[in-house]
């Protein structure tokens, strides 16, 4: 029994409850939108649909982006507002990351390319796709998870912190 407690403490040094409840809420937000509209809301299509406001590239001027771009802006504003409200209540608002700007920028570029080429991200494939039992999504998640673990371990081994 004592060993199990130690193991849990090692694997989840910050506890596990807030991770589970947070995850359930992420799922609930997605489920609420789906129940009303039948839409599987992912977070990364917002990038391309928002570019359709300002770019004339035919890639972005597709009907599926133009028809959804307004509500995707509202969805994103909702995410920002929900996170802001939570952090204001808990007093965490104003926390800033120690991750270097170059990593955020370069990582962001790769995320922008990869999620749009791969048709989804951690919410589209990871939550909606896996929740749907989609084989393409499960494969995509397995690949980005394994690659990300390798890269994060490599970066850490190089001595880059955090």
């Amino acid at each position, binding site marked *: 029994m004592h060993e199990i407690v130690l193991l849990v403490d090692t694997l989840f040094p910050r506890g596990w409850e807030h991770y589970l409840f947070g995850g359930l809420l992420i799922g609930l937000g997605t489920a*609420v*939108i789906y129940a009303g509209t039948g839409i599987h*809301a992912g977070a990364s299509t917002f990038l391309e649909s928002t570019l359709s406001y300002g770019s004339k590239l035919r890639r972005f001027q597709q009907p599926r982006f133009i028809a959804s771009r307004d509500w995707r802006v509202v969805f994103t504003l909702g995410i920002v507002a929900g996170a802001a409200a939570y952090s204001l209540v808990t007093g965490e608002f104003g926390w800033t990351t120690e991750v270097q700007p170059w990593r955020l920028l370069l*990582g*962001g570029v790769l995320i922008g390319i990869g*999620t749009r080429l791969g048709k989804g991200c951690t919410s589209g494939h990871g939550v909606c796709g896996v929740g749907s039992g*989609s084989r*393409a999504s499960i494969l995509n998640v397995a690949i980005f998870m394994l690659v990300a673990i390798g890269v994060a371990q490599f970066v850490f081994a190089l001595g880059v912190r955090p």
Partner: protein
Amino acid sequence: MTDPTPPERGASPMSGAGIIAEHESHPLFLPLVFLGGAIFGVGLAMSQMARPEIVLEFLQFRDLGLLFVMGGASVVVGITFWALTLSGRSAPMTGKRFGRRLKSMDRDVIVGGGIFGVGWGLSGICPGAAYASLGIGNVVILYGVLGMFIGAYLQGYLRETRADAAAPSPAD
């Protein structure tokens, strides 16, 4: 991030002409999407996914909490999608038939997943979590959001120019 095409000349409508926005199907569509997004955002903040450090610690096996986040979210979504799809009904606000999210399997799913993985592992951010991170006041995350827009633009630009090279079409 500049658009290589010349500025609009007024004659060609930028976009949106003749396309009905999805949210126009019901007056409560946008309020519902905002509510769903807000719940989603609370979840991202509560689960600490809005903090790149926590995601990086998961990827480095120093705190496996993210397993609970993705697991919890997938179970709720899985049950909801499954039950509503099985009901055979249509969504009240759009008339869209309930169905699962199934994307076609091709090489892009694999290559895109790999590229996303490099970015995620390097930075600890992903799109939804980055928006939430801005919400908790982490303004530095704007570097990441800017990067995502640049990346999304780059892939659109490259795919379009490559498609044009393969099948010439009127220049624009």
